[in-house]
């Protein structure tokens, strides 16, 4: 039996695409395009939000010049850069060899292994923050407990901190703590990317190299790495964008404040606080656009860095 709609419910081919696209377009316009344009509009205005939408005043580039003079904005950018590098670089340095190892060493269990590494990526940030808050706890945390145990060992013990580390309240240890979480969370995602790329490298290349007498390491540096180049570009670009927009982990871990001495206040956390804690939506919008310019510039630089010479 053929299921058929009454003729008046059928869409003519001329209008069907519009009707079918409408749900996405409308949602995108409302939740994507509108906030984007609204924040651009706000960036040039001063606004006391509790007075209503009519209370906006045009201030030209004031918000931008304020942002550039604001010490805390620069501080938050430095924090962001520190965290992006400290969490981003190790992600790739670990993910590439790890993916290669998983690719070569596992056949049957590969998917299960990849799944295990990927799990943190799909876990809720709130759950992660709660888990790590207890792991990093000064008096009862497992991390300090492990350090205390390792301290007993000869040689290694001397290198470790001699007292319990106040991970989340001491400005010097908060950043490494956040970077560790971000690294742990996204390394699996990069492993998946690289594993997918590894599977596309033709095995004949390795066979030919073996015949020519190339060892494992030579094969890795002369075949694997160059073949991964496009995927490294993609992975690094995602890390740059994600790293510069880092918000959830530091926000939840520091109770939405940015931590002692604002050590965990990334640019994204700072602009959120500017809007919702300090009531300065104009400056917050200007900062978000400055951040966008930085993200765009760094993405372009990444692109330049990974461009092939013959391109």
């Amino acid at each position, binding site marked *: 039996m053929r299921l058929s709609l009454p003729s*008046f419910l059928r869409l*003519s081919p001329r209008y069907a695409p519009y009707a079918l696209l409408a749900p996405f377009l*409308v*949602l995108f316009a*409302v939740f994507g395009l509108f906030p984007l344009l609204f924040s651009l509009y706000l960036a040039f205005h001063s606004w006391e939000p509790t007075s209503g939408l009519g*209370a906006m005043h045009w201030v030209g580039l004031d918000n931008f010049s304020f942002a550039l*003079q604001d010490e805390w904005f620069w501080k938050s950018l430095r924090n962001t850069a520190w965290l992006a590098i400290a969490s981003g670089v190790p992600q790739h340095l670990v993910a590439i060899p790890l993916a290669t190892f998983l690719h070569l060493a596992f056949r049957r269990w590969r998917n299960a292994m990849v799944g295990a590494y990927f799990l943190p990526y799909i876990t809720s940030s709130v759950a992660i923050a709660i888990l790590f808050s207890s792991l990093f706890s000064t008096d009862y945390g497992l991390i300090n407990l492990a350090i205390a145990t390792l301290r007993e060992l000869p040689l290694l013990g001397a290198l470790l901190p001699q007292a319990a580390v106040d991970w989340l309240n001491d400005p010097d240890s908060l950043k490494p703590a956040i970077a560790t979480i971000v690294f742990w969370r996204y390394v699996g995602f990069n492993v998946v990317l690289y594993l997918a790329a590894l599977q596309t490298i033709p095995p004949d290349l390795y066979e030919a190299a073996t015949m020519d007498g190339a060892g494992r390491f030579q094969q890795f540096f002369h075949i694997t790495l160059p073949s991964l180049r496009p995927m490294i570009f993609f992975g690094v670009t995602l890390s740059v964008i994600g790293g510069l927009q880092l918000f959830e982990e530091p926000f939840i871990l520091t109770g939405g404040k940015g931590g002692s*001495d604002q050590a965990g206040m990334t640019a994204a956390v700072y602009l959120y606080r500017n809007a919702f*804690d300090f009531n300065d939506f104009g400056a917050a919008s200007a900062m978000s656009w400055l951040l966008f310019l930085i993200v765009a510039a760094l993405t372009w630089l990444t692109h330049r860095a990974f461009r092939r010479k013959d391109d």
Partner: protein
Amino acid sequence: MRRWVQRLSAMVLTLAAGSIGALAAGPAAGGSPDGASAPPPAAGGSGRTPGSTLTLTVAAFPAIDEIVRAALPAWRLRHPDVEVKVLNREVNDHHTAMTTALSTAKGLPDVMALEIGYLGRFAQGTGLEDLSKPPYVLGRDRDRFVRYAFDQATTPQGAIVAVPTDIGPGTLLYRTDLLARAGLTEADLTTSWEGFVTAGVKIKAATGAYLLAHARDMKDILIRTGLQPGEGLYFDEQSRPLVTTPRFVRAFELAKAVRRQQLDARVTAWSADWTEGFKRGGIATQMSGAWLAGHLNTWLAPDTRGRWRAAQLPEGAFAAYGGTFFAMARLGDPSRKAMAYEFIRFMTLDRDQQLAAFKSQDAFPALTDAQTDAFFDQPLPFLGGQSARRDWREAAGRIRAFPVHKQDAFAREVIDTELDKVLDRDKDIPTALADAQRLLQLRARR
């Protein structure tokens, strides 16, 4: 004909998708700035016709929601045809929701509770109804309220944007048993701030207990004392930062003295260690609103009953710790404003309601009329039979309001950060305050 139907169905689909999107985005996308083009009141919600009921929405946070709910039976006796719906949110979420509602004029409650920390911020704008004007003319009732609380709700331009309902007169709660073991009396704590710190050294030596939960508490109270007329906490009338004045220098120096002599437990209020400190007698004193005595009694440290006493703050300081207000939105539904105001008056100017809130939730009445009740003379078993409510009443009358500045929240954060650097990393106090001054100068006129 068929083509038309097809076009129509395509349009219906598009519109349906559109309206779902618009509904979901309601607060962000809609809203008229001046309320002039606001749609007429929807049927059922307002626009009373004889025999129908009117529903007021009150947005609150714990425990104000409970106070309001407890008042409803008495309210219904007076207004059987007016229903009251209470919305309750966590305190920060509540104020964020009110900011959003005011900025877009969507989803506004008829009555909103505001905490003092946020009232200053909200009063900067024009989102709240000015109750000094007719038909309200709240100024007539000025003398019926505790003076400082009413002043806090009055803007420099003379607008009255909220009505105080409860206040938090500051008090010094101390462990009388620990003091006795150290051979000290109340006067040793309260004569001067320097004496307070010296007493702390003796308490630590004799009992091992800390004087304070955190050295920051010392700074917080000291910057609130000795304000010159017209001065705000962090800024003067011309928006000039005041953080390098002697008031801040002394506050920082005393906080540092507390930390240097290891007299603070380094725990923040409401943390598990803070609670534990009270339970085990590890913290000898706490400066706070009078309401803290109630919290200690009911859940923080009920087993320490009888060992606490309350004193006025040292060196004749009088300060407020917290306070709640009721306000109405300027762009709220006009047809319900009169009744909403009636409800606010019922909660704030009715002696019985104010007393009921005090008895059940330790919400100290802002209505002076309610402060003459015999309840104020009753001894408090938790404080060893002391009639502390009289002292708190006296303190409430002596607190003075100071002007708020829209950058107060930021200034507080900057000062706390610099104090942390002084306490934890031995940053030099003049440098710390100069750094704070520079940050505040840039932001003061925004």
